[in-house]
């Protein structure tokens, strides 16, 4: 079989428990995002746009929605004769089986998959992040610098640095030390959880890590530190651009408001680095005679009669007359009837909000679970 230059492995097994109701039915990478996407579309589209045609998706927590979304990878051009996309869940062997114990263990358990392609390099990604990045540039940096591993880093404000894994580098960008969530950070270069490894090195360290009983089998906690200890060359690759880990309901909501801000650098609406997704066939959006749209995002299959202010609605959403939706996110196929006020809310899929209702106090984010029916307040009077 032909050798692949670089194979991508996307870690998509996380629960994202801090996202609450958003991840009740699905893994975090499958959570809807940005009006018509799911979070993992960003990593998948980055791979597709970077010319990577072989991708493994490591799944574990509630994978059904994610699996259905990815299918054979057609939207991202991964339906290939050689390579393409493979979902890699944990599996049984003759001597039993194990859940993925950590990020490194997930890759270790699938070394057979990688061996099949005998890649020169392996790109490790998280399926949880919102960003647009050309991995070809990072690979060039990796090759040019002669590194054994390259870690993408982003400059974060010093005040927030203790929330991240921080890289301390010399003036050539070579990583000297790494600290996971340091109390007193020495630098502001945060790891983005994007790694390129020279495959032979990765294999060696994954096998050694698997034999270490005390290891947590995690890239950040174990693989990177042990490579540093052994004097391997680890290089930081600086990324300038929008990058967000939507870890909590607050940051999920904020990331959507980022999309709507006029000077946002997500560049979701730019045409040169498309984000692909799997879509249903729906007609264009219809905007009614008395609708008012202010700084909002609307997509296919929506019918809007009311007002949308700083809001994002997903496919097939209906917004009735005299309804006002502000600073909110309304997911697929939800119906908001006439005379409803919604502020600072996240309404999940297939919700029906009957007429004469008010949701959200405008301060805290209100989340309405999928398939709920909010009965009309007018009827109760």
């Amino acid at each position: 079989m032909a050798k692949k230059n670089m194979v991508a492995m996307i870690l998509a097994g996380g629960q994202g428990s801090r996202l609450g109701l958003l991840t009740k039915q699905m893994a975090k990478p499958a959570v809807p995002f940005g009006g018509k996407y799911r979070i993992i579309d960003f990593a998948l589209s980055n791979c597709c746009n970077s010319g990577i045609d072989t991708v493994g998706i490591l799944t574990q927590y509630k994978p059904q929605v994610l699996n259905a979304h990815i299918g054979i990878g057609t939207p991202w051009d991964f339906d290939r004769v050689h390579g393409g996309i493979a979902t890699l869940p944990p599996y049984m062997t003759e001597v039993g089986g194990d859940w993925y114990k950590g990020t490194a263990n997930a890759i270790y358990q699938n070394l057979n998959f990688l061996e099949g392609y005998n890649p020169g390099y392996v790109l490790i990604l998280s399926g949880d992040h919102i960003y647009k990045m050309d991995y070809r540039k990072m690979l060039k940096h990796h090759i040019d610098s002669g590194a054994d591993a390259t870690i993408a880093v982003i400059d974060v404000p010093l005040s927030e640095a203790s929330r991240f894994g921080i890289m301390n580098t010399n003036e050539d960008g070579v990583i000297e030390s790494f600290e996971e969530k340091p109390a007193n950070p020495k630098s502001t270069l945060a790891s983005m959880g994007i790694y390129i490894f020279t495959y032979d090195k990765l294999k060696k360290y994954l096998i050694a890590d698997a034999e270490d009983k005390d290891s947590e089998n995690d890239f950040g906690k174990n693989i990177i530190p042990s490579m540093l200890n052994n004097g391997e060359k680890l290089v930081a690759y600086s990324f300038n651009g929008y990058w967000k880990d939507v870890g909590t309901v607050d940051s999920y909501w904020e990331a959507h408001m980022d999309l709507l801000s006029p000077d946002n650098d997500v560049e979701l609406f730019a045409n040169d680095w498309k984000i692909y997704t799997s879509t249903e066939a729906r007609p264009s959006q219809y905007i009614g005679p008395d609708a008012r749209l202010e700084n909002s995002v609307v997509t296919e299959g929506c019918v809007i009669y009311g007002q949308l202010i700083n809001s994002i609605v997903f496919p097939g959403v209906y917004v009735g007359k005299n309804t006002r939706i502000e600073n909110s996110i309304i997911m697929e196929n939800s119906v908001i009837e006439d005379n409803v006020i919604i502020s600072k809310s996240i309404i999940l899929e297939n919700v029906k909000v009957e007429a004469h209702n008010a949701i959200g106090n405008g301060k805290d984010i209100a989340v309405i679970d999928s398939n709920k029916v909010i009965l009309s307040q007018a009827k109760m009077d």
Partner: protein
Amino acid sequence: MIKDYMAIINLDENENDIRSLTTNRPIASIPLGSRYRVIDFILSNIVNCGIQNVGIFSGTNSRSLTDHVGTGKAWDLNRKIDGLFVFNHGLCDFVNHDSKLLKNNMEYIYRSHSDNVILASSYMVCNMDLADVVHAHEASGADMTVVYKSTDEADSEFLNCYTLDIDDKTNRLLGVGKNIGFSQNANICMEIFLMKKEKLVELIYKSAHNLDSKSFISFIFNEMVNLNVNTYKYDGIVLCINTISSYYRSNMKMLTPEVSDKLFRSDRPIYTKIKDEPPTLYVKGCEVENSLIADGCIIRGKVKNSVIGRYVDIEDDVEIENCIILQNIRIHKGAKLSHVIIDKNVDIEEGTELKGNETFPLVIEKKNLFK
């Protein structure tokens, strides 16, 4: 049984009165209803009833069409068994070329497993349950079934379309004519025919070798009076795309829920090519009223009673009213447009004012991307 049917779409359609939209494409691939192409409707009708073998017979100007249908993936027609087959004119005969094209590709028709054929055109836009037509055809025992729409607007719509004379009691066809717009009531032939494959093969050979035959469709209308032909009355919405003004009105009708709810149903979706455009952004200060808008747009100005295609940028202080804007268009600051149809890839410069009217909408033709 729907399993025994294949479909053939014959795109030899009359383009005389819609030339400004067909300089680069057949009627079948004219953009329609903000994000579709004309052919999407009949193709979706065919696959929604369960037919999996579709042959499209098109003319020489088919780049746009083949780009649009591709391998048929959007309609689930990229199949190992059956699927989509596209045939283009090679040599251009001036008369009767569609009969010759069909004859030259007879092997496709022979090889198909189906014993029956639905022959259709693309320009009669509707969302039809073809399974119901198949049942009616089989129950009738006729040689052929032809679908028609009974209209009381024949003086303004469906001009130049074939009309049918029908026996009220037996539903059998008595004769055919053309709608020349002198009366309001007419039975308009929707150019959907059901018959045995053998019958189609016979008609193709006869038409291809008949020196008087002008086109396959005209030959069928001549022959029909000699056959036992059943008629099927279609009661749904039909939009006929054969003139600039009917194209304009058809788009505008899609703004009314009475028409759009019938054309766009979740149980029988209309499929089209996927372009992966981002959602549409409505910037603060925009005013949008009664309009159909595709994804991939950025709207800053005023849009009223209009149909807007994919990737349209509407800048500040623009006023658009009663317009049809196709795909990939930028309308620069301060432009004022009313009753205008703008074809693909056009840049409307700053401050431009363009005005057509209801009967004669102004058409700005497609701009080529190359010099």
